[in-house]
């Protein structure tokens, strides 16, 4: 029996008979099996200031543009005598040293939009700057290649556009036990059992029923599977770490979810940026440290790829409030145990040759990164999802 078939049959069996010991055996088989690739996407919401995350400390333009919020060389973690990581990102330096981190600079898209919402939608739907799509790129991945809603999970109470497809949505789950319990209400089970419709997704009411039916079956599978693993790693106390901890629990228990989506918010640093940014990066880096350790403890790190992005970078020049306004091109982190090109992937764009808004020019379209991940990591046809061809990169 090939692996896909096995997983398909097993999840069906587990939802029918619900034998925990069977689920247990199943989960061990999956985690012991190598090659079940998972993608973890992390969104730093609000527009992370890439220039103060990865600092070109030998560039005078940088300090001229940021007289009070420019980070001094002494406080930075030197990477290659050109670029330095923010002092909060020590754990990332460790990953960098072990070859588990690829830093891709100048990621963006033509005619950048500087609205949070529009930019977030563009990143999440993988659209052009002037194109409005109603489905997310992970949602379309579900639509075309993975017919189950639990194939993509957002560790939140609500679902981002990224995970919304045309026919299928991913699931938003913060607490698998609670969700499972709710779906066991006898009356609601009866209602969902009796529902009759051949055109489930065509109108709003059909959408509610479809969500109810999907939730019921997925909640059981996720709950029964994930309770077979509990982490022994200490995570920092923060909602973001909690999202990562649950993700690690899902991955290490052998859940056949392919894509996880977590987020850390607060990066919209228009005023008094320094302390706020420092604190947020620390939350991010400390969380990642525990997460990677957790995955390594079950040998699942090598089959996990972690993508960290933000909807835009920030203006090169600081503003009058010791902060920065919305910019465009930004730095993106790829973390994983199986990277082909670890380290700094490409040089940071010029700080003197800016666009007419005073922002850095983009070099790599973010969709080439999606294309790379879809094609080389999830092994699906990226063009079907992205609606046009992008030349994949070689970091994986």
């Amino acid at each position, binding site marked *: 029996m090939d692996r896909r078939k096995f997983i398909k049959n097993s999840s069906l069996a587990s939802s029918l008979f619900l034998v925990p010991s069977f689920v247990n055996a199943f989960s061990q088989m999956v985690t012991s099996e190598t090659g079940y690739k998972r993608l973890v996407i992390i969104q730093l919401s609000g527009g992370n200031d890439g220039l103060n995350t990865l600092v070109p400390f030998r560039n005078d333009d940088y300090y001229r543009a940021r007289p009070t919020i420019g980070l001094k060389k002494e406080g930075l973690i030197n990477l290659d005598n050109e670029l330095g990581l923010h002092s909060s990102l020590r754990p990332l330096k460790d990953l960098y040293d072990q070859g588990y981190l690829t830093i891709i600079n100048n990621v963006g898209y033509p005619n950048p939009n500087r*609205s949070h919402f529009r930019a977030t939608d563009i990143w999440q739907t993988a659209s052009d700057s002037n194109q409005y799509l109603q489905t997310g790129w992970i949602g379309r991945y579900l639509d075309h290649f993975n017919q189950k809603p639990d194939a993509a999970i957002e560790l939140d109470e*609500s679902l981002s556009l990224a995970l919304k497809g045309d026919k299928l949505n991913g699931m938003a789950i913060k607490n698998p036990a609670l969700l499972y319990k709710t779906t066991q*209400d006898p009356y609601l089970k009866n209602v969902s059992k*009796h529902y009759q*419709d051949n055109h489930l997704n065509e109108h*709003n009411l059909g959408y509610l029923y479809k969500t109810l039916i999907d939730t019921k079956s997925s909640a059981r599978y996720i709950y029964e599977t994930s309770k077979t693993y509990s982490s022994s790693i200490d995570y920092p106390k923060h909602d973001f770490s909690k999202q990562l901890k649950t993700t690690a629990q899902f991955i290490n228990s052998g859940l056949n979810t392919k894509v996880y989506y977590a987020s850390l918010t607060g990066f919209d640093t*228009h005023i008094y940026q320094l302390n706020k940014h420092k604190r947020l990066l620390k939350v991010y880096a400390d969380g990642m440290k525990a997460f990677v350790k957790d995955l390594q403890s079950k040998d699942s790190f090598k089959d996990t790829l972690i993508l960290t992005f933000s909807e835009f970078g920030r203006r090169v020049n600081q*503003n*009058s409030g010791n902060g920065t*306004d919305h910019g465009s091109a930004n730095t993106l982190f790829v973390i994983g145990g199986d990277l082909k090109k670890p380290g700094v992937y490409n040089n940071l764009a010029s700080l003197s040759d800016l666009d007419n808004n005073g922002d850095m020019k983009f070099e790599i379209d973010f969709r080439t990164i999606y294309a790379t991940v879809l094609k080389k990591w999830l092994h699906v046809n990226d063009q079907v999802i992205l609606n046009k061809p992008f030349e994949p990169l070689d970091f994986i």
Partner: protein
Amino acid sequence: MKKEHIQHLYWRAGFGINPKAMQSLLDKSRKSVVDLLFYESSNYIPLKIDTPEFDTLTFEEFNETKKIHRAYIEKSKLKVKELNHEWIHKMSFSNETLREKMTLFWANHFVCQDRFILYIQKFNNTLRQNALGNFKDFVKAISKEPTMIDYLDLKQNRKNKPNENFARELFELFTLGVGNYSENDIKESAKAFTGYNYNFEGDFVFNEKQHNYDFKHVFDKAGRYDGDDIIDIVLEQKQCARFICTKLYSYFVNSTLNQAHIEDMTDVFYSDYHIETVLKYMFTQDWFYSPEHIGTKIKSPVELIVGMSQIVPVTFKETEQVLGIQKMLGQILLYPPNVAGWKGGKNWIDSNTLMLRLKLPSALLSDGKIDTKVKGDFYDSFSKYYENRKGNTKIKASIDWDVFKTNYEEVEIEDLNNYLLQSPINKGTLNYLNRLSKTSKLDYCVQLMSIPEYQMC
């Protein structure tokens, strides 16, 4: 006016209507029902909570030491939660139905957040006061609210160092919509909004020293504009009326847009930007009552919570619980996700929120239990599920079933769904409902409120 149409009107322009209140409207014309709806909302009654510790507070006292300042902020944050609770209560029990619905609508248009109670309360009442008034006055008033000045960094927008945040959102979210202005329009308009500030009491202060008196080049015009001038210029564009009418149509009629109907609304609204006029126009059109619109909108969490109170009045006792419910449903009033507000529609729904939505009526009204007895059963075969529950935190609320009994007295139990549900019931679900024993109107009420159809309005 037909029962179905009255219910539709009251669900969209308010939070629903009970059969008793509907009785006197049945023999009135559409026009007089709509007129009455506006008449009931002609009063403006502000939302005010008790804030003794802030009412006479001076700037000096507020900032005496860092510690005192922090303590006041913490107290204020609690007060903001209390305001949320009171707002839910006001919507549930106010007679100014339409004004409250419009206040809710505008709160998701002029989106703001503030931890200082006096400013956010003032802002909320500015929404309420202008909810049915003139849109031009409204935008100008909003641009001078302390909460807005803070939220979109107008204070940081100085003569020599403009901050574009407000100018961008003014065009993108408040008046024109994405793609109807240039980056240059934003940069130039930001200059016009320099000097905006407020005093500790929350009154608008125009700081002449910080205002940029240069020429500004905006939308092919040039002049020494200030903020109000920019708003005048923006509203001269028909696109502004179109943008607002599109939003109104999408909210009150259908998120699938009908451009012809929106264009008709735009013509009405553009003539004088009077909100009441365009709403009246919308509510009296035949197309507003077209079957494709009735019962096809997914209720927002607030519409769901407040709507329940129109059937069985619910008074929440604990502020934290009111906020907790809103949080789990994905909409906490006064705490928007971002300056674009809540997207609405299908975006409300995911696996979590849907389950909670279906459980909420029973959680509030029947201790979490939904009866599953079918005809001929003596006892509920699934009662075990409920017996095994423990540690469930109960929602503390007073439930007035007597009001339900009085208002629905004339309604036969078999007919109850026609008053509680706006959407036709799915065939399979209807078969299931028909098999239920239906011995108690109260139980059946909870059962009907627990099916997906109840989520529609």
